[in-house]
Structures are given as structure tokens and as C-alpha cells.
């Protein structure tokens, strides 16, 4: 009996010792935060990860909010109904401090910034061109994220450089509670950062990635936004003269956005989406288009005022980016009016004019790689800057270049002596920017940074008496450039978490 007892005690303690383990389990879906950045390959993967942040995850992804909040508050679009999606509030100016899309941008941008800070902190420059390139790309992405933040959450630079900007985050310290820097501090940071990035990036990277030209392109836009016109022209020229890009051909223009980045000679930088990134109804294109088989919400249409502008020249190839939906009977056959013409279908009484700039990449209705920078914008940046410097001829030349590419010629072109009823050359340029860059998240900023009023005198659900600036009798919504809702509220959660943050009025 004694022996047995001993044996059992031995067995039990023995097993205890054997199993009394360190319980060390590591996750399978990645690497430790230190180990991940130890090699060049790790830095490369982390950089791809940072690009991925621009795509974003899930239905309410970063790029979706970026292109909706950048475009919907302007006059190119008309919403045909109400929706639970906070894009509704961006569209109708009924902002709330807890809009999910504003949170997506705010958090998404700082997540991207954190990722870039980790790489920039970890990698020493001057070791190899490849490493320098990666640091440059990260610096560019860091600047781009700050640029998104400052344009959405701070008033235009041209209105008040000393106004409240956004926190500038250049380290990976999670504890820091940063206050908002001023707008000019943020823009100065952007300029320095992008100049650095341009110096570091010396490899020729395809247009799904950052490169020296992407830095120059952004610098051109940023200087334009700052009212620094010479610099805007200088950087536009550097891109134009780089020889890397050429304007997309006129006769094929409607297919511009159907080509993947690498096949498009005009795109300078676009957020590459593969089929893996296809978010179905969550894609940017979903709100603009419903495919014949029903994919996509198809609730946001080209506005009547945009269509009227485009219709001034029926031969304008940019009509190819719009497509009406026609009434059909239950068997799918078109219904015609008394003249035998098809009838444009209506949703809630609003004519259905689809926008096709975010559909049919690689023939997939819901897929697109939204364009951040393209050559046309460089010409139009240069045109706007020249117009402001009173170099009217140069401005008109660039506008005409873009119009010719759109298939316009002869009378459809401007000359300094024939502004076709437009008051100023700047008006001509801004109108051309509207026509060319419509739906690409430019228009809102172009209006307000130039201290102009937004006027939406066309049908759409923005015409509701409870929305700001609406006059129901005149059927218009007017937002003045000094209106507080030209910028979004900082998400109220963030104000709670960081007492140093000041909310927008």
C-alpha cells in the first residue's frame, strides 16, 4: 500500500512538472510588432499594408467615405431618396457629430499614419535606393492622410490659414493627446513632407504606388489649395514634363475608368482594387449605378445642373460617363413615349441618371480603382493658377487642351476674347474642372476654397426644409463659403477621448 501511494504521488507530480508549461502560444495570422519590421521584406509588406488602409475594410471602407464625403456635398450629384447611411448627412448638410463616415475617415487616416510612422521610425535612409523609396512612399502616404483630414475637418487654407487644423502625428506613441495644429502648420508640414518624399523616391513605380511624380502632383494641388500659384504651376509642370503620362485618348474616353491602373497612361495614382477588394454594395460605384441584373444601390444620380452643363455640347465625350435608366415593362422591354423615344425611369420622382466612373473595371460592374491623381488635373491646376496670376492665355490653352481631349473643337473651345458668357477666365477654368473632374471628389473643395457659394437649384432630396440653406419656394439649397458645415464635425467620441481636441463650431 505504501508503495502504491508513493507511485501515485510520483506519477501525479511528474505529470504536473511535464505539463506545468509556459503556455506560450503565438497567433498564426501575423508576426510580432518588432519582428515584422526587421527585414526589408517586412518593411515592404508593412508598406503594402499602409496602401491597403487607403482601400479600407468592410462595407463602410475608407475609400468609400473619401469619395462620398468629398463629392456628395457638391452640385454634381442628386440623391433620389432618403437613406440610413450617413452619406445622407454628408449630402444634405445635416451633419451630426456622430456620423459614421466622418469617424471612418478620422480613424482610418490616423491608422494609416500610425503604420507609416512605424516604418519611418524603423528604417534609416541613405542605405539603399530601395529602402529610401519605401520611406518616401510612407512619407507620401502620411502626407496624403493628413491632407484628407485637413480638407474634411478644417476650413480651407485660403479662408483662414491660422484657423484650426488637425493634429499632426509623426510618431507611434499611443499615449500622446495632441491638440489641433493650425491649418497653415498642417499645410507647411504637408509641403515639407512631400518634398522629402520626392527626394527619397527615385525608383519608377507603377501608378498603383507612390512615386516622385505622385509627390509632385500632390504638391501641385496643395499649393493650389494654399493659393501659392507659382508653386502649383511649377509642380504641375514637373509632372507634365516627366513624360510618364499622357492624356487618355478622346475616342475611347468612356472607358477611362474601366481600365486597371497599369493599363491607363493618364492615371498618376489610383487606389488599386483587385477582385478581392470588391465590396459589392459597399463599393463607391454602388450608389451611382445599378447593373441590369440589380447589383448596386443606384440611388445617387448626376444632377440636373451638371447634365445641363454637359448638354451644352452634345458631342462632349464625357457624356460617356453618364447613362440614363429607361422605363421597362415587366418583361424588361423599354417603354416609349408618344414620339417613340424611351422614357427615362424615375426613382421617387427623380430621373435616374447613372454615373459610370466607378464601375466595370475589368468588366466587373461593382469594381473600380478610384483615381487620386491624373494628368488632366495637372493641366487644370496649372490653368487655375495661371488664371489667378492673370496669365489668361496659358489658362485658356490648358482648358482647351482638356476640352479637345473630350472631343470638342471649333466653337466649343474658348479664347481669351470669347469666354462664351462666362465672367472671368477663372470661371471658365472652374467650370472645366467641374466638367472634367466631376464625381472624383474635387468639386466641393474647388467651390469653397475659392470662396464661392454652392448652389443646388435642382431636384433632389437635399431640398428638404430641415436642411441648411434650403429655400423651398425657390427650390434651391445655397451653402455660403463661410457656412460652418463646409467642414465636418470631428467625431464626438474623439473629443471625449482627447480633451485637447477642439470641436468645429
Amino acid at each position, binding site marked *: 500500500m505504501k508503495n502504491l501511494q508513493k507511485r501515485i504521488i510520483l506519477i501525479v507530480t511528474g505529470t504536473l512538472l511535464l505539463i506545468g508549461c509556459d503556455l506560450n502560444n503565438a497567433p498564426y495570422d501575423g508576426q*510580432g510588432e518588432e519582428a515584422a519590421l526587421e527585414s526589408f521584406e517586412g518593411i515592404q509588406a508593412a508598406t*503594402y499594408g499602409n496602401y491597403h488602409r487607403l482601400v479600407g475594410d468592410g462595407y463602410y471602407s475608407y475609400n468609400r467615405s473619401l469619395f462620398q464625403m468629398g463629392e456628395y456635398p457638391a452640385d454634381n450629384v442628386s440623391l433620389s431618396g432618403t437613406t440610413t447611411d450617413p452619406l445622407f448627412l454628408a449630402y444634405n448638410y445635416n451633419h451630426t457629430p456622430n456620423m459614421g463616415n466622418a469617424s471612418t475617415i478620422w480613424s482610418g487616416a490616423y491608422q494609416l499614419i*500610425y503604420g507609416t510612422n512605424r516604418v519611418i521610425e524603423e528604417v534609416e535612409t541613405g542605405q539603399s535606393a530601395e529602402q529610401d523609396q519605401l520611406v518616401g512612399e510612407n512619407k507620401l502616404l502620411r502626407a496624403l492622410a493628413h491632407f484628407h483630414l485637413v480638407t474634411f475637418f478644417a476650413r480651407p487654407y485660403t479662408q483662414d490659414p491660422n484657423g484650426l487644423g488637425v493634429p499632426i502625428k509623426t510618431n507611434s506613441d499611443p499615449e500622446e493627446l495632441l491638440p489641433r495644429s493650425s491649418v497653415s502648420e498642417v499645410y507647411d508640414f504637408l509641403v515639407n513632407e512631400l518634398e522629402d518624399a520626392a527626394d527619397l523616391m527615385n525608383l519608377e513605380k507603377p501608378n498603383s504606388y507612390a512615386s516622385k511624380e505622385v509627390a509632385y502632383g500632390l504638391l501641385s494641388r496643395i499649393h493650389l489649395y494654399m493659393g501659392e500659384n507659382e508653386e502649383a504651376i511649377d509642380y504641375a509642370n514637373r509632372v507634365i514634363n516627366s513624360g510618364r503620362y499622357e492624356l487618355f485618348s478622346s475616342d475611347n474616353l468612356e472607358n477611362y475608368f474601366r481600365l486597371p491602373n497599369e493599363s491607363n497612361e493618364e492615371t498618376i495614382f489610383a487606389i488599386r482594387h483587385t477582385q478581392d477588394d470588391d465590396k459589392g454594395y459597399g463599393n463607391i460605384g454602388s450608389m451611382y449605378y445599378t447593373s441590369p441584373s440589380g447589383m448596386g444601390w443606384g440611388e445617387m444620380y448626376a444632377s440636373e445642373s451638371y447634365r445641363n452643363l454637359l448638354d451644352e455640347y452634345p458631342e462632349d465625350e464625357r457624356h460617356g460617363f453618364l447613362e440614363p435608366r429607361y422605363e421597362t415593362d415587366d418583361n424588361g422591354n423599354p417603354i416609349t413615349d408618344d414620339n417613340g423615344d424611351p422614357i427615362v425611369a424615375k426613382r421617387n420622382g427623380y430621373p435616374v441618371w447613372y454615373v459610370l466612373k466607378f464601375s466595370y473595371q475589368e468588366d466587373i460592374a461593382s469594381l473600380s480603382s478610384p483615381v487620386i491623381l491624373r494628368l488632366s488635373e495637372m493641366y487644370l491646376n496649372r490653368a487655375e493658377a495661371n488664371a489667378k496670376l492673370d496669365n489668361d492665355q496659358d489658362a485658356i490653352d490648358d482648358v482647351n487642351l482638356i476640352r479637345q481631349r473630350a472631343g470638342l473643337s471649333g466653337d466649343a473651345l474658348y479664347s481669351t476674347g470669347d469666354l462664351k458668357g462666362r465672367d472671368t477666365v477663372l470661371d471658365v477654368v472652374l467650370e472645366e474642372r467641374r466638367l472634367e473632374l466631376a464625381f472624383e471628389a474635387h468639386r466641393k473643395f474647388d467651390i469653397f476654397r475659392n470662396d464661392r457659394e454652392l448652389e443646388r437649384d435642382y431636384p433632389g432630396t437635399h431640398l428638404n426644409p430641415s436642411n441648411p440653406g434650403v429655400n423651398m419656394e425657390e427650390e434651391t439649397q445655397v451653402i455660403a463659403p463661410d457656412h460652418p458645415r463646409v467642414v465636418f464635425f470631428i*467625431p464626438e467620441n474623439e473629443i471625449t477621448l482627447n480633451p485637447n481636441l477642439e470641436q468645429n463650431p
Partner: protein
Amino acid sequence: MMKWIHNINLLGLGVLVLLPMSLIAQDVSVSGKVTDSAGDALPGVNVLIDESGSGTITNNEGEYQLEAPSDGTLVFSYVGFEQQRIAINGSNTIDVVLQESTAELDDLVVMGYSERGLREISSSVASIDAEDLQDVTTSNTTSLLQGKASGVYMSSTSGSPGSTPEVRIRGAGSITAGSDPLYVIDGVIAGSGGAFDVNMLNPRDVESVTVLKDASATSLYGSRASNGVIVITTKQAKPGTSNIDISTTLGVSNRSNGNFEVMNSAQNYEYHDLMGDPNLDNSWLDRDTDWQDLAFDQGVLQEYQVSVSAGNDRTRYYISGNYFNEEGTLISDELERFSGRLNLTHQVNDRFNLITSLSGSYTDNVNNPTGALYQSYNNLPWDEPYREDGSIRTGNESNWLGRDNSNFLYPLQYNASNSRRHYIAGSVRGEFNIFDWLYVSSTNRATINNYRAESNADRRTSAGSTNNGELNNSYDYSSSFISSNLIHANRDFGDHSLSGLAGFEYQRSYSDGINGTGIGIEPNLEILNVTAEPLTIGGYKYESEFFSALSQLEYNYRDTYFGTISYRLDGSSRFGVDNRYGNFYSIGGSWLVSNEEFINNFEAIDLLRIRGSYGTSGNAGIGNYEHFGLYSYTVQYAGNPGAVPTRIANPELTWEIAKQANIGIDLEIFERIEFSTDIYQQTNDDLLLAVVLPATAGFSSRTENVGSVRNRGFEFELTTQNILGDFNWTTDFNISFNNNEVINLHEGEDILAGNQRIMEGYDKNTWYMRKWMGVDPETGAPLWEVLTRDDDGDVVDRDVTNNYSEATQQPVGTATPDFSGGIRNRFSYKGLSLNTFFTFTYGNDVYHSARQLFDSDGAYPGYNQMVLKDDWSRWQQSGDDATHPRAVYGGNQNSNSPSSRYLEDGSYLRLQNISLSYNLSPDVLSQFGFRTLRVFASGDNLVTFTGFSGMDPEAGVESGTAGTKYPISRKLLFGIEVGL
């Protein structure tokens, strides 16, 4: 004191062999036969020498033999029978007739590691036997508990077959970490929350459920026991029996609509007219589609169970097979399950017992692959589902009016979403006696769980059109292994009795899975191999380990004073390298006052006990790798593998600890009234908290050990035998009050949780929204409250505004009920019995979020709306004192944005079950060779009394949010149970 159980089998399923030992001189050999009152032999009866605690059990013929002191006393005890004590007085033969005890079963409580007579218990437990458990018909064992035990609060979030309600024992003390109780099956930890799916257990195999609530009961489970423990015991044969039981249940289920109604064509027309819909067309009135009728249908439920249980003194087994099939009330929603179990125990020799169990189930789920549920609430009555020729419209027609352009009937033709699960659990337990007072046991269980799901989006449907048809397959596998190895001791020293256990446990859980989507597939094909190309592929692996050492010592003096102390050391791989191990302990005591001499003066008192305990337990209910700083490689950019930082390291992360004190009193008087009450306080410290970080940190949150939450409560259980005799009436009643308060948080910072906010000094589930102030009688505009605060944060002025952004967010209610409970009345007359069971919940606020859509004052003209409740009214003209703002086409100043407007009282009283059954008398049955025959008719959830405006006031324990809910079903069932 006749019912007093001295020392029931120590462990698990039951028979512990205690060897006779020649300890004292002058022993005599005693033998005899034990029979029941009918004269049938009783095998497996415990025969113990009172003085030494040693003894034996009767053999197959009910006979026993042992050596005992000639002046000793023998104690005969057997589950289900009254215990008898007989003095030996030198005799060599003692035959005993044991009297059956109906109450006895209730008195035996399975505590997980051990089994205790009810009167030995120093802790707070609630025990429910099979009969009370199985009144409702469900595939889910958890659902059986609703309303039946004090301290247990439940709320279901879906009425879909097989869905599991949320369960909280004595409130939730954790914020980020899970609050699900720990499940223990047949003495071994099975898991909690996501790690363990209680759906895998066939409810018909359950013998009893014990809920362990206070620290003295739970701390032996140290790790993961802070949310309480639910101990489930499966059925086992009794020695000397050979029974076959067959039961059949058939029934129908219908959705319970509650107070909810969607508008019909004319009602919706009137509403659109009121809001000035510019597109309104009176031809729409020609159409009146009831989308709810299209989405819901009567479901059929059927269940068949056969079980065989038999055994002798050495070997016993219980075998069961079960088929369960329930159609949901939503169309195309069905659960089908086959399950089987073999419980086998065998006494290998005098020293060695083997207890084994093997169970498995196969579950097949058909899920509705469309938005039928959502659309049933929101589609317009003006859209017709069918064309004139009877074919189904897509919803994408240019003249479709509803805002989502969707007719769920269309994709339902082509798309499917199915899943199936195989689950196997096997356990082996060995018990080896070293001395009559000491034995070792080793319990080992392995489980394997295979889950497969497949779904498709046919190319003819909008979802499948993009990629010319899609097919998704996923495989998930998980396994777990647990080994529990213990030494048990039990010895009496005169009036002193000591027992204890010590040992260690190791648990490992593992899971992996893959999923893939292929695109380009012809209709009606359903394997990935026929897709043209892959779209996505994914996969994962997880593992976690626990290691624990545990010990417990129990003492009692004269069966009157009881004390328990326990200690447990737990380590988990989920915590940081510096802090993996946690220590947990408890101390408890009870005084069985009714065992004292002086109490004999009070004839009415049958039992009086005072209990008290204090102790700690832990919670590890977080993800497997929360301490690990991670770059996740789960993303790509332009087809290149990418890595994103997703977590900051926290090497100090450790156990969340719950400290709980409990005081209770149990009282039985007049042999008719049983009363039990408990007061407790549980404080969870070092909460595992996802501390929300400002966005500039780069991460949304980091899991840290900060903060504490306190739950205090009061529980009350009462069982009365109101009328005894041919006509019997008994009542069981329980009620629980729990008060929850967040004591402190990370630097006092509030935690935002959707429409709730976690704040120091408030209930954990406090609604924090703009406060609805009704409708401006002049304009019909919505009004909210604006608070003006001074520098100290005190409110100095209250005003109203019709600007949503200006309104002040503030606490406006809680999702936590003031009290909940259940009441059962059982009436019987001869073989006929009527059983009614009500559950109730009072004082919780439910956020009826779906009203943002279907009670939205014109904000969603493209959605159908709910019919306003009787006491609601719509503002129409100046001066109207209305509950609802003016309806404005396109919305009235964010009137439907989240606010306390949609917060409703979630109190309800529900007739959860009523059943009428008839037991044929054994005399009649025996002529036909039947042992028992019972027929019954039963109704589940037939009536609910509530003011809630939705279909069903149950909205989940913590979220408290009712969306477009899948309502619970009302069931009418008929059954027959035959015993052979």
C-alpha cells in the same frame, strides 16, 4: 430528520466503492439483503459503517456483506430512497426494506467536482431536475433554464430554431471580456461562450442542471468561473433497472406578433398623403401586399427520442437516440438534428471504476439566404411580389416603389445557405481506490467539432450577377482536450468529518478553418470545382491552453457545522508572459440550525440553515492573443501581401478577478413550504477592458486590466405545496433583483458603446442618448433636451431644441431589468396534471432601433411603416398635443435619429409554457406490458403581456436593442411518452 442524507456518493455519476477495512477489533461479519417496498432487490445500495465511514454496496441481488464492529451502526442509502440507520447490536444478518422517497432526487445536488446532499451545501446553488427543465420543447439546453432559477437572467435575440439566448448569472461584471457562464458537463469543464456550443447537447439527455452562483461553489473552477457555472448532468441508468423510453412530440409554431403591425396599403397611403408625398398615386391603392405573410409561415416541429437504460451493480448504461426537426416561422429556415449518447459505467474490480461517455450529434441547418426578415418589416404594400403571369418579380423593375428594390422571393428561388455540424465528445473517467478513505480519479474528455457551410449567389440574382454566379464554402474545425486529475479523501473522526480533493487540470483548445469563394458558375451546380475561377480564399488557426492546480478541504462537525476552503492556481496562454497565473480561493461555512437540540422545540421547522461564503474567481473571456502586439498579414494591396499593425502588446495582461460574498438562509416549515434567500455582492476588479484609444494612437483600443464593476443582489425562491391529497397543487416561485454599478474605469473615462455609455457610478448598460422631449405643439417639430452646465459640470439650465446636433447626450435609462423571475403552478388530480409556467422581467429599457426606419415621420417614404400604437398620435395641425412629429416627406429634422424617443419599457410577463398531461395508471399499463404512458398537450409562449411596441420584448441581455427581430414563436405541441 428522516430525509437526511448522510454522505452520498462523492463523485460524478455515482458509485464510489469504499473498501471494508479491519480497523477495529471485535468485528462481526454482517450480511443481508436490501429490497424496496415491493420486495424487489435493490442493487448498488450504499452500506456504510457510520463510525468509520467505510462500507460496501449491494450486489445485483441486493445482497451485501461486510465486517463491522458489533456495536456499530449501518447506514443504508440509495438515490431515490429514504436513508435508514440500523444498529448492528451483534447480529450477523440485517435485511432492510428501503422506502422510496419522491423528494430525495431534488435533494441531491451535482456540484461539478462533487455531489452533495442539499443540506451539506454551504454555497448558493439552484438545481433544476429533468421534469421542470423539459416543459418547453427546444433543441437548446440553455433555453430550458429561462425563468427557472433565481439569479439567472436570459434574453433571446432571435426566434430562429437553434438560436441560443444570452445568459447572465447575477448580472454581468465584465465589460469587454465575456459574461457567459461556464458550462460543466458530467463533472468536467466544457467551456463557455463561443468556445462551447451548448446546442450540441440534446436536452432530453439532461438529468439535472445546477447553477453555481457564489464563490464557494464556483471557485473550484477558478479560471472562467466569475460569470457563474452551469453544471449539467446527463442521464444514467439506476442499478437493477432495464427500461426503454420512447417519446414523440409533434407540433406547430407561429410567429408571435406582439403589439406590432405594419401598415396596409390604405394606411400607408394616408400616411404618405399626410407627409405630402409629391409622387403619390391613388392607383397604388389597388395593391395591398402583406410582406409579413409572405415572409413568415407556420412551422412544423417534430421530435422523437428513444432511450434504453439498464444496469446491474457492476455495469450500467444509458443509450439514447434523438431526432429533432424544427421549421422556423420564417420561410426557408430549418434545423434538423440527430443526436445520440452512450453513458456507460463499469466497476472493473473492488478498486477500480470506469465511467465513460460518448455522445455525438449531426445538425443540418437551412438558413434563409435572402433579406426576407428585413423586407417583411420594410417592403411597401404597394409593390406586388408576382407578375400577372404568376412569375416572381425581381424588385429591380423600373416601377418598383420600395426603397431597397428587392423582392426576397426572387433570390429565394435560386440561392441557398446551408450549414451542417458534426460534434463528437468522448470522455473516460477512472477512479482508483487506494484506501477506503482515499481515491484518485482521472477524467479526460476530447471533443471534435466539424462545421461546414455553403452558400451561393446565383448569377440570375443581383448579388450573383457581378461575378456571373458565386459559390462560397467554408470549413471550420475545432477540438478540445481536457484532463482533470484529482486525489479525493474523505474521513470521519468521531463527530468530525473531513473531506478534500487536490489535483491539476490541463485544457487545450484548437481550431482551424478555411473558406473560399469561386465565381463563374452555372445555375444549379454546387461545388467549387465547377466555378470558373477563385475569388477569395481565407483560413485561420487558433489555440489556447489552460493549466490549473486546485484543492479543496471540507469539514463538518456533527453534520451541523460545515466549512469549506478551496484554492486554485490557474494559468492561461491568453495572458501576457509576465502575468499568466492567477490565484483564486474561497471560504464558506454553514450552520444547519435545525440539527441542534434546541430546535426540536419548534415543531414546524423541518430545516433551517444559514450559509455564508467569500471568495474569488477569474475571467479569461477574451480573444486568444490579446496580449500579443501584432502585425497582421491578412491584407493585400494590388495583389501583394501586406501587413497592418492591429494590436499593441501588453505583456502585463492578466486575469480579471471577481470577489464575491454571499449570505443565504434556507428554511423548510410544516413540511410544505421551502424558502431560500440569498444576498450577494460581487465586485469584478482588474477588468479585462478594451480601453478605447483616441484615433491618433493608431489603434481603436487596447486590452488592459483596469476598472471594476459591482453587482449586488437579492434572490428569493419559494416552493409551496398548497394542496395535498388526490388533488395536488404546488407552486414554485423565484425572483431576482440585481443592481449593477460601474465602480471605476480607466482614468475615469467613459466607454462608448453605441447608444449606451459605460460610466462610473452608473449601471453598465446605461442608455446614453439625446433625450426626447416630444413634439412642438406649434410646428410638429421634434424636440430634444439641451442641458447647460456650469464649470463644475452641474446642470444649471434645461431647455428644448429642435436641432438634433445641439441636443445634449445624457443617461436616459438602462437595459438592465430591476427584477426577473418565474412562477410555476402544478395542479394534478390522479394521473392528470396541469402545469403553467410564467416568466417575467421588469424595468429594463429596450431600444427599438428599427423604429428609426418604420416609425420615422417621413424620413423613409420608401419603407413601410408600423401602425401607431393606440396611445400614440401624429401631429397634424398647430395645437396638436401629439406623441409623433409632423410627417415630412424626406424626414423631419432628424426626428428619427437615435434618441430616447425609441426607448421603451421592456417589461413583460410571458406564459412560457402551459401543458396538460395524463399519466395512465401503472395498474392498467402493466396489463399491456407498459411501465409508463404519458400523453400531453403543451403550448410555448402562447401569451405575452407587455407594453413594448415590437413583436417581442426580448432583445438580448446587454445590447437591449430590438431591430427587425426574428420574433420568438408560439408553439402548440402534442406528445406521447411510453416507458417499457
